């Protein structure tokens, strides 16, 4: 009997303490001055991130609607608002960049010196300035994103790690980095459905490096290029974008994907526009040869993706991958192009890529074999 | 004196270069049953295996009709020499008739297809040994005694002149032990087979052998007829038994 009474007394005491604490908390919050949101970054195509600026100089970055980062000016104390966000302190001088598509954007911002470590090795880079930085030692190779050299990252004092969505496959790496005190920002530009949406992420990096103006200027230039495209003939030209994998299947992008959009903006029509696989987050689909044959045989232009498929120089090499391709209209009319390695690494130049495709479709490139990103296979 | 079919010349048998039994001189004559006895580890199985070429002789040679076994082609040897081994072969989904038919392999063509003559021989042999009723039964399903007889029928289908058996009756019950040994004696007498067998059951060896070879301490201890070998004194010495205990086994 006395035991039960004692239990009730303990419970009551606990309840009282809890109430007091909650009261204190809300009292504290009520006491501190609320920071005001002064601005919201204007984004035209990007949908995967947003930036809110506060009057105390901090900026709240929200990625994918769920990841929140609070960027503080140099020497500032962490404010009372957005306590759940990951704290980033300016200046960010030693970045560990594990997202290769972001590298080019940093280059365009002239902020390459801020990048200390990269997860792609020297001989896999097609951007000469990056290769030079790695050679001279101003940038270091940290190992693959899935197995980084933690000791190096720590000893170099990296203050931020920018990862691509591949890190979702290795969550333990992300946890380890956070544990070691290196904040992890997962950039989701690959989820942007508009090609310029990917480029617009330069504005985010502009905020992180304090080069907002350069970022805005660059993006304006891209928009200008897009608006300067030539018109294509009324019958929209059909374009297929693919590569043949080692199992003999054709790997193509889904409809509504950024590749499909690039072709569309260039004035063409992506032959697999109707291919939707919403059940998976992958942007590509492995097609059986007969489906690929049926869908792409009459395409006017074929673009081979050499980033994963391997670089091709001649038409004969393409046909050695699959002899069925000799039937294709584009092969017979000499309209087979190959997208080089730089197409994916020079992510800032989506507008340029669209311009290239536009040149092919509008007939401007009929005499040319080499464009900025594509080369014709003969 | 009939000419020996299978004989040895200064044969040493063993494994990996080390001899287990040395200086073996034996001969098996047609129509005779030669038993090999001795304590465990004396080398009975090693000798048998060397005779059927499963092991290489350490020294010396095995002769078939005076010719060295190692010089003769395998098929020719198979037409003269057949074996029934210890252990239980476990072939999947094989009928008894198929097992017996394997004995005709030294006589069939490239693909091993049996001719009418071969099939007849198989049927005859199965009748002779008394396993005709199991022809269609699964080899793995029959009893141990029946299995030994089927394997004997298989060996006989090779039309051998020398039959070598490694402990043929060890796993059989009394009735089947007697049956099989009686059958062997009949075959030896009627068909002039030379039979060499290793055996544990001394009383049966005494009754069914024509000659006996005793192995002990790495050599042939004694060879002779059953009357000489199966005296209580010698058996006690051969098997290192206490005085007076040999009587139980004879």
């Amino acid at each position: 009997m006395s035991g039960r009474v004692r239990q009730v007394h303990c419970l009551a005491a606990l309840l009282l303490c809890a109430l007091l604490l909650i009261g204190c908390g809300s009292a504290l919050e009520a006491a501190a001055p609320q920071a005001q949101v002064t601005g919201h970054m204007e984004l035209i195509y990007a949908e995967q991130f947003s930036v809110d600026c506060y009057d105390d100089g901090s900026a709240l970055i929200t990625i994918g609607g769920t990841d929140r980062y609070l960027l503080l000016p140099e020497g500032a104390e962490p404010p009372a608002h957005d306590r759940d966000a990951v704290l980033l302190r300016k200046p960010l001088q030693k970045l560990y960049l594990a997202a290769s598509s972001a590298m080019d954007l940093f280059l365009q911002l002239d902020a390459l010196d801020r990048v200390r470590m990269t997860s792609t090795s020297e001989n896999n880079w097609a951007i000469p300035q990056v290769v030079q930085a790695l050679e001279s030692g101003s940038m270091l190779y940290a190992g693959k994103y899935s197995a980084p050299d933690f000791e190096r990252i720590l000893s170099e004092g990296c203050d931020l790690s920018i990862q691509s969505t591949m890190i979702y496959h290795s969550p333990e790496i992300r946890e380890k980095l956070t544990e070691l005190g290196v904040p992890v920002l997962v950039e989701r530009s690959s989820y942007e459905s508009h090609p310029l949406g990917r480029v617009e992420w330069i504005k985010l990096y502009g905020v992180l490096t304090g080069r907002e103006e350069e970022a805005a200027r660059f993006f304006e230039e891209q928009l200008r290029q897009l608006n300067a495209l030539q018109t294509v003939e009324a019958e929209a030209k059909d374009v297929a974008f693919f590569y043949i994998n080692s199992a003999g299947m054709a790997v193509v992008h889904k409809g509504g994907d950024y590749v499909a959009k690039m072709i569309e903006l260039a004035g063409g029509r992506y032959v697999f526009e109707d291919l939707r696989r919403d059940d998976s987050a992958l942007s590509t689909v492995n097609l059986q040869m007969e489906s690929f044959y049926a869908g792409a045989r009459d395409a006017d232009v074929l673009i081979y993706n050499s980033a994963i498929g391997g670089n091709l120089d001649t038409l004969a090499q393409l046909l050695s991958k699959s002899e069925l391709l000799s039937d294709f209209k584009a092969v017979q009319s000499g309209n087979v192009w190959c997208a080089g390695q730089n197409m994916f690494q020079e992510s800032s130049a989506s507008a340029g890529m669209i311009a290239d495709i536009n040149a092919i479709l509008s007939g401007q490139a009929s005499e040319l074999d080499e464009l900025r990103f594509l080369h014709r296979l003969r | 004196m009939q000419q020996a079919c299978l004989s040895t010349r200064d044969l040493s048998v063993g494994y990996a270069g080390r001899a287990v039994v040395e200086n073996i001189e034996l001969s098996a004559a047609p129509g005779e049953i030669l038993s090999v006895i001795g304590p465990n580890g004396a080398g009975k199985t090693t000798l048998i295996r060397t005779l059927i070429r499963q092991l290489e002789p350490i020294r010396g040679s095995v002769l078939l009709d005076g010719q060295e076994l190692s010089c003769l082609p395998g098929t020719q040897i198979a037409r003269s020499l057949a074996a029934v081994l210890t252990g239980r072969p476990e072939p999947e989904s094989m009928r008894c008739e198929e097992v017996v038919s394997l004995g005709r392999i030294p006589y069939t063509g490239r693909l091993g297809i049996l001719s009418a003559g071969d099939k007849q021989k198989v049927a005859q042999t199965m009748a002779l040994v008394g396993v005709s009723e199991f022809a269609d039964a699964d080899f793995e399903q029959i009893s141990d005694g029946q299995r030994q007889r089927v394997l004997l029928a298989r060996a006989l289908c090779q039309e051998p002149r020398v039959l070598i058996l490694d402990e043929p009756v060890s796993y059989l019950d009394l009735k089947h032990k007697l049956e099989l040994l009686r059958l062997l004696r009949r075959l030896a007498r009627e068909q002039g087979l030379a039979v060499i067998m290793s055996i544990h059951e001394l009383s049966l060896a005494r009754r069914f052998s024509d000659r006996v070879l005793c192995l002990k301490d790495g050599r042939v201890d004694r060879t002779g007829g059953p009357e000489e070998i199966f005296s209580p004194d010698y058996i006690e010495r051969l098997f290192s038994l206490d005085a007076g205990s040999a009587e139980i086994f004879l």
Partner: protein
Amino acid sequence: MKSNHPRRFALCFALLGAALLLLLLLNTVTGSAGIGPAQLLAALSGRGGDETALRIVRDIRLPRLLAAALLGGALSVSGFQLQTFFANPIAGPFVLGVSSGAKLTVALSMVFCLANGVLLSSAGMILTAFAGAMLSMGLVLLAAGRLRSMALLIVCGVMIGYICSAVTDIVVTFADDSNIVNLHNWSLGSFSGMGWGQLRAAAVTALAALVFSFLLSKPMNAYQLGEAYARSMGVDIRRFRVELILLSSVLAACVTAFAGPISFVGIAVPHLIRRLFRSSRPLVILPACFLGGAVFCLFCDLIARTLFAPTELSISSVTAVFGAPVVIGMLLSRQKKRRQQGG
């Protein structure tokens, strides 16, 4: 005693033949390209019809299904040979490490080619895979020459497989993502890249090996009672070992080179065939295994191609789904039989 076995054999062969024809037909008419029956008839009979449809049926589906039949049969025969040789029911065409050797050389050539900007054509990949398989086989033959025990030889083969896999993993550690994806795709196995040229090359190799395997039925039959009995019946054991390892490896290598490693066909089908025919006689079971493997593989390829069209499942996953239960069932029934016999 009259036995009804020849009648059973004839019936089973007829059954297999009918199943094969049915599946050949089904595979010809179904596919992801959505060709209607009218178009199909027109295309097949050559009376006009859509040229695309004709090309698809003639140059994509036909070589693919013929390859599935041929290579499925080859795997089956190889599996039966090794199961008999090792007297082990779980032995399969890849127990001697043939596919691991192939995967290693494929990984090496992928890395080498990407690093030097050289293009790895499909013919190149086939040749390297075959070479790797033959390398593994060579090592096994060396071991077979020195080892007497069959159990040791199988362990040797498995170890060679593991070593090759380990080296492949090391190579992969230094490879970049695209190569890893490429290698992974290759090792899933697929009939997708089959063309007439490749089919011809595969057919020449596989059929030659199959004919020689058939000629080996007599010593195989002797071997079913064990090595000792086989030798006493006049079989040249040394030569037989070499011939059997060589032939089964060439068959397995052929499949691995042209379609990647495809599991379970070689293990499950021989068991099914032996059950069906109630016999193990190589002279009968070898051709039966070929037919059975062809039927099984055609069936699995049909499922792989149509279930999630226009993409396809990896053939190995489908064969595993259908093959693994067979193997488990077989092992359980063996146990039951053993228990019944024992005592």
